[in-house]
């Protein structure tokens, strides 16, 4: 297992989380037509990022076992919460913070 590939995988999860936030900000906006709801810069960029993330994931798998992928995927909960907090100004409950710490602890244990 290579640490750099672990970070490549985490990067892929991070950019996917960014695309999710983009989709969410787009869903919150009002558009003049149904087509515009799908064909607008945010949605297109979001799916573009998502597409790139699939390649980054494959590159990451060159250096990590399959079993580690879905484990690292759970960092998505952390990224979405942090991006939601800073960009969408969503609150994070204490229970959620505790959960995020537990998730990260679990990821670290799995990598031992």
């Amino acid at each position, binding site marked *: 297992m290579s640490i750099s590939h672990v970070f490549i995988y985490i990067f892929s999860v991070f950019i996917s989380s960014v695309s999710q936030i983009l989709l969410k900000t787009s869903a919150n906006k009002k558009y003049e037509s149904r087509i515009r709801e799908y064909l607008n810069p945010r949605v297109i960029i979001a799916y573009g990022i998502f597409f790139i993330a699939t390649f980054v994931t494959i590159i990451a798998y060159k250096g990590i076992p399959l079993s580690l992928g*879905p484990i690292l995927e759970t960092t998505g909960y952390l990224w979405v919460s942090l991006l939601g907090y800073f960009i969408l100004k969503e*609150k994070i409950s204490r*229970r959620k*913070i505790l959960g995020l710490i537990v998730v990260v602890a679990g990821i670290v244990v799995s990598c031992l």
Partner: protein
Amino acid sequence: MKKVRYFIYLHIILALFSVSAILSKMAAGEKAPKLDLSGGVSGFLNMDTSSFKWMMYYAGILFIMFVYAIAWQQIIKRMPIVTAYANKAVLVIWGIIWGLVFFGEKITVPKIIGAVIIIAGVWLVVTGDEYRDEEENEP
């Protein structure tokens, strides 16, 4: 009984989604085809076996993601989003199983303990949003 049915659908679609990770890992073992537009159709046909396999795996990944995205959208309409997200943690277990079956990855004690901790953490995270409302109602 409808609840049970959608719960089963959810797990079928999650199991399908877990297969995309197998394909990603398999694609990682092959050579990605070079984007050579000058080669045109003949360049495409002269592609080596490794690149061809890569393309097949990648097509499989995109197909699964497409099916998953649509099915997920339908399922979360019919069950609490919290339940759906909490159950998504099962992907961690699928990853460990597929790693063993397809790539002979050893199931180690830290991996099992880590997986259990992660699943507990995910449950706290996804239920955390519900508890927030109660906290806000406190004086």
